């Protein structure tokens, strides 16, 4: 499992076990620092890159593709140096941009064939791979229609197909679920899962929603303000961040009784970490299965009704508040590094 605390150097120049390695990667623009000494080691699999808008995700992708030079530090993709071997990286890597990139007046087939040839596939191979890839992403008869007539979900599939058509060893997917409805999101995430499990292609997928990546990724990297907040396997992550939202009724006999306060006291006493979520809701960090029992017993002891008890995921913002508040209490940059660079 990747471990960002371990020194990277021993494996740096060996067999490229890691698909992406960055070492103190820094990107400064005249007015903002988009990436700040980022050191990560991404293994084969589906890896999520999570961060709010402006956290430096798109900047990182541009550097990994060898399209923008890093100010400091190094990065290797598939064992290739981004500073000197950009062209070789781009031949082996697929990229799905966040923004629209599809001309509306050509069909998906024509477009993907063209992009396959732009990756160096000979004409016949380009056509065959296009037919295969479009089928794999779930586009059938409609692939002969102009892209302008497609739904958002279908367009996202075309974007994914053009990233996969040349059979890359790694795909970089920038916010692939953007603009999709919940059903479309699930389908896209399932597809991304299959890109690794069925196609054997490693995936780096960015999102600003931690929740959706937890389901899809083996490993999650969280960045904020260009800094690495956390890099750990999804299992660790879920354990540490899963929350239980608990809401209780007032005590029938004594409406003035501070139920929330009393409950909080009891749960904290039981060794749980509890935060208030406004009103009558308490957020309890789920340590183990016992957590549920503790909450149930505490509520029963107080003699109040349990309105709801539901698992809740941390939104990415909450992860930031926990960490960022400790490290940089005075600063939450208003600048958006991504906006300076997103018009690629």
């Amino acid at each position, binding site marked *: 499992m990747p471990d960002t605390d371990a020194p990277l150097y021993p494996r740096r120049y060996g067999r490229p076990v890691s698909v992406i390695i960055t070492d103190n990667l820094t990107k400064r623009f005249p007015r903002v620092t988009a990436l700040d000494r980022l050191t990560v080691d991404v293994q084969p699999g589906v890896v999520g890159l999570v961060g709010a808008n402006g956290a430096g995700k798109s900047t990182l992708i541009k550097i990994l*593709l060898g*399209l923008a030079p890093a100010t400091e530090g190094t990065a290797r993709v598939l064992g290739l140096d981004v500073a000197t071997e950009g*062209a*070789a990286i*781009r*031949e082996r*890597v697929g*990229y799905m*941009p966040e*923004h*629209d*990139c*599809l*001309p*509306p*007046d*050509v069909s998906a087939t*024509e477009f993907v064939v*063209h*992009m396959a*040839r*732009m*990756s*160096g*596939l*000979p004409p016949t*191979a380009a056509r065959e*791979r296009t037919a*295969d890839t479009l089928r*794999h992403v779930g586009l059938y008869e409609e692939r002969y229609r*102009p892209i302008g007539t497609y739904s958002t979900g279908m367009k996202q599939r075309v974007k994914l197909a*053009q990233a996969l058509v*040349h*059979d890359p060893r790694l795909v970089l997917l920038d916010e692939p679920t953007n603009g999709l409805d919940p059903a479309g999101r699930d389908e896209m995430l399932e597809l991304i899962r299959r890109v690794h499990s*069925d*196609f*054997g292609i490693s995936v780096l997928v960015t999102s600003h929603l931690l929740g959706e990546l937890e389901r899809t990724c083996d490993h999650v990297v969280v960045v904020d303000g260009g800094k690495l907040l956390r890099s750990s396997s999804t299992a660790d992550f879920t354990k540490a961040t899963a929350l239980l939202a608990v809401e209780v009724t007032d005590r029938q006999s004594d409406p003035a009784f501070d139920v929330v306060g009393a409950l909080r006291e009891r749960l904290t006493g039981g060794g749980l970490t509890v935060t208030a979520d406004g009103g009558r809701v308490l957020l309890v960090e789920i340590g183990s299965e016992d957590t549920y029992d503790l909450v149930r017993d505490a509520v029963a002891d107080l003699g109040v009704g349990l309105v709801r008890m539901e698992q809740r995921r941390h939104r990415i913002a909450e992860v930031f508040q926990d960490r960022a508040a400790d490290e940089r209490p005075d600063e939450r940059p208003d600048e958006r590094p991504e906006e300076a660079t997103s018009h*690629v």
Partner: protein
Amino acid sequence: MSDSMPAAARADVIHDIGYRHYDGPRLGRGYATRSLYTLTLRGSFGLGRSIKSKILPMGLLALMCVPALIIVAVAVYLKSGKLPLEYERYLSIMDFVIAVFVASQAPVALSRDLRFMTVPLYFSRPITAGDYVRAKFGAMFSAMFLLTGVPLLIMWIGSLLASMSFSYNLEHFGFGLVAAALYSLLYSSLALVIASATPRRGFGVAGIIMVLLISSAIASIIYFVINRHDINAGFQVHESTAAYWANVISPSGLVDSSVTWMFKLPTSGASGVPSTLGGFVFLAEIAAVSVAAYGLLVRRYRKI
């Protein structure tokens, strides 16, 4: 694929083959650049695009060729020993059609990629900004050269059919092709720079038309003003060579007059050079504008 699928040899079974990896050749940057060139060149004539996008470029190509056909037909019918028109002259007469073609198609080559943000996608592939510009510039130049060269070819074939002087026509067809190449080079340069500045096709079209046609119009006005002034001053009209300097601001005038001068063709109207030095200045200007345009394009795409 070969050793992992021995069962595929049995032809009577349909397999769900799942995902197949590609281990064939990857042809690299040069091939990708040529693919982009071909796509853009075909696109300039609406090939591989909708019927609607074929109408204008194909119509303009026909418009370029029909007068040439008529000229040839008349010359053959009248059994005149000579085409009524210099090859080079034909292009300067058809200047308007050439300008409309480049104005309508240069934005197709560049603005669409900007507007639909396909450019970053290209650069996530092995090709570089330089390759992109090379492909697009080459394709626009080739499209223009086809548009201007085909009618000249028709005239030349006509001259052969009518058994006109072979050597004279071959030579002057060659002069015509030089003019065609210079028109293609200069017009493509100007048009692509303007088209690369805007993702809006309409702005691109309007900008190019403005630059090409308005500059020619202003040049003509200046030419006639100077000429008139000289006449009033007692000079003869065709001696007033200073007026030819007006061509420096007109793309069509530049090509027309420098080709006329280089090959000592008969001047007509404003198509002269002020002096030998002027001729070299005109040629140098064409070269400088083209090189500068190419450099600007590369710089513009390097930033993306």
